[in-house]
């Protein structure tokens, strides 16, 4: 795949075997990025969760039944980014500094073509005007703009944190950021250290080492979207749920064919 190459490539590795499903990543994300919460959030098809925790199971009955969790931020696709290429108003772009897919809220017309284009369901439309319960507005982050109704929003890998880190580095007359100088809110909040974040292009970074492991895989890799989010697990049944396979296919061989 001819992935668009940038000097820096921010990415994430999530160790699914370390994830306990506590949801701290989701809460940290909601809080960090000024996501509003309605009184009734029971309609999950309209609930905005930039970082979403899927509960998955192996479909077997007791005693073979197993379950696990699958945290899903934006995959920040690197090849022909599905949502970016379809936007009619150029309201979403791939940043050349790190390859993060960002959304320009004030330019989005709300056509939702990008929502249709994304197979990971990471894009959320604002079906309502954002209303923050009384008092909650005091906890809003000044670094992130709240979104108006009628536009699409998504995980930005906490892009504002990158901006802050870059400002700090510039003040200290440094061009490059140190490892862990810029990490996302979910990475920071994870109590088991399941999420590792950094520059995938820098072989010194832990994230690059983990992503290079032979058992690292990505979600729906066969589509060719080149996600920047990698996953790790020792369990084959979880690994198999990350992509579509024909009944006769062995997922290990499919991966070998590709590389």
């Amino acid at each position, binding site marked *: 795949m001819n992935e668009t190459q940038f000097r820096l490539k921010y990415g994430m590795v999530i160790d699914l075997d370390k994830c306990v499903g506590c949801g701290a990543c989701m809460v940290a994300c909601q809080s960090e990025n000024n996501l509003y919460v309605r009184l009734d959030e029971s309609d999950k*098809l*309209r609930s905005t969760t930039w970082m979403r925790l899927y509960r998955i199971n192996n479909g077997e009955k007791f005693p073979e039944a197993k379950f696990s969790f699958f945290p899903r931020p934006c995959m920040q696709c690197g090849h022909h980014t599905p949502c970016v290429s*379809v936007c009619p108003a150029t309201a979403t772009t791939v940043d050349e500094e790190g390859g993060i897919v960002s959304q320009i809220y004030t330019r989005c017309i709300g056509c*939702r073509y990008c929502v249709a284009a994304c197979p990971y369901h990471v894009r959320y439309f604002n079906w309502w005007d954002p209303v923050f319960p009384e008092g909650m507005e005091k906890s809003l982050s000044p670094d992130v703009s709240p979104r*108006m*109704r*009628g536009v699409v929003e998504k995980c930005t890998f906490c892009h504002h944190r990158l901006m802050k880190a870059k400002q700090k580095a510039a003040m200290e007359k440094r061009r490059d950021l140190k490892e862990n100088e810029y990490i996302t809110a979910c990475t920071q909040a994870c109590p088991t250290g399941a999420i590792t974040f950094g520059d995938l292009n820098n072989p010194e970074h832990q994230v690059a080492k983990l992503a290079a492991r032979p058992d690292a895989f990505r979600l729906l890799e066969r589509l060719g979207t080149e996600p920047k989010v990698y996953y790790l697990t020792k369990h084959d049944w979880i690994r198999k749920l990350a992509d579509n396979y024909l009944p006769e296919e062995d997922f290990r061989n499919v991966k070998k064919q590709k590389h």
Partner: protein
Amino acid sequence: MDSALFPAGADRCSPGKFYGWIVFCLMVLGWGVLGALVCIVLALNQTAMNDYFAFGLWIVFDLAVIALGAGAFFTGFLTYILRKEELRSIINTSVIIGFICYSGAVGMLGFDIGQPLRGWFGFWHANVHSMLTEVMFCITCYLGVLTIEYLPLILENRKLNQVPEFHFMAHNMHQIMALFAGTGTFLSFFHQGSLGGMYGVLFARPFAFREGFFIWPWTFFLFIWSAIASGPCLTILVAMITEKVSGKKLVKQEAISLLAKISGWLLATYLVAKIADTLYWGYVMAPAKGLTLASFYREGPYGMWLLFAEIGIFGIIPALILTNREARENRTLLAIAAVMNCTGICINRFVFTVVSLAIPVMPFEKFASYFPTWQEWSISFGMLAYGCLIFSLSYRYLPVFPHEHELNAGSGHAHAHAH
């Protein structure tokens, strides 16, 4: 009462009857306007759409009416460019239907986007890589062309035409109509294709994705093909309904027959291409992504029956009727074939719009269902009512059918208001 406005030599039903129908249309349209206002004021949470069904009834409706409105550009192309003179009997009908379909679709799209006031951003910040940008440009421009094509017909209203300026303007516009027909053909060709391209380029949605030629996925060509195969059938159908309701012969049989024949052969050839596309998609493309044809059709109500309905029942059957001379000369069979052809295209657009999104791509994702709310239905039916309104008013006051007088000369009632 309003007979002075009727086309010369034509008689129409009583004002009471006509305006009763108009009031009914206005009531349905008013219901649609109410739905639209509710959506604009309270935002799109008033619909049943969600983050899984980003497109819903409105986009299905838009795509269906735009495909069915293709009768306008295609009949214009046949009449003015290929000089099929017999189609002059039905060209006005196709132009009005085209105008209704396109203006209605553009209006509906205005409610469908989350930020209607930013609709122009698609032109200002245009992303040239997006199929939707192309759709926006072409639909808007083509609506302009359709307005230009419709205008001389309005100016030919008996009273308006007495104004010399209007008379000459209409006359001169008719003289250069081939130019607009050509422009319309070019624009329409591309946006019908781009609407198909919109789905075909979704490479991360294996249900919709298609390979293709250069930058155009096969759906680009299939959408053009299916639109020109079914659009003329809506034109035929509307002409036949108008004849039935008015109890008059309005269009020359040769025009209907020619259009039906062209429509039939286009549908037949389209089906060959569509079946080939389906087989390649189901047996070559899907397995490469770890999927099978069957895996696309096991979700909720969207089973294999959709494929059989679209291609088999509402594709092959009307194609057989329309390509058979004896069958299409039978008006009942022709009407059935036309309805089936139009239904087939609606199913096709529904499948690409709703089913594409309903099929989960992630294996652990669940199927979500969608059923439109009254607000979505109201705007859709409002659009239909708007169409009936425009066409009814046009039929009553404009010379839509140039051969009406000639075809009804012997019947007696055509002379009722003749001078």
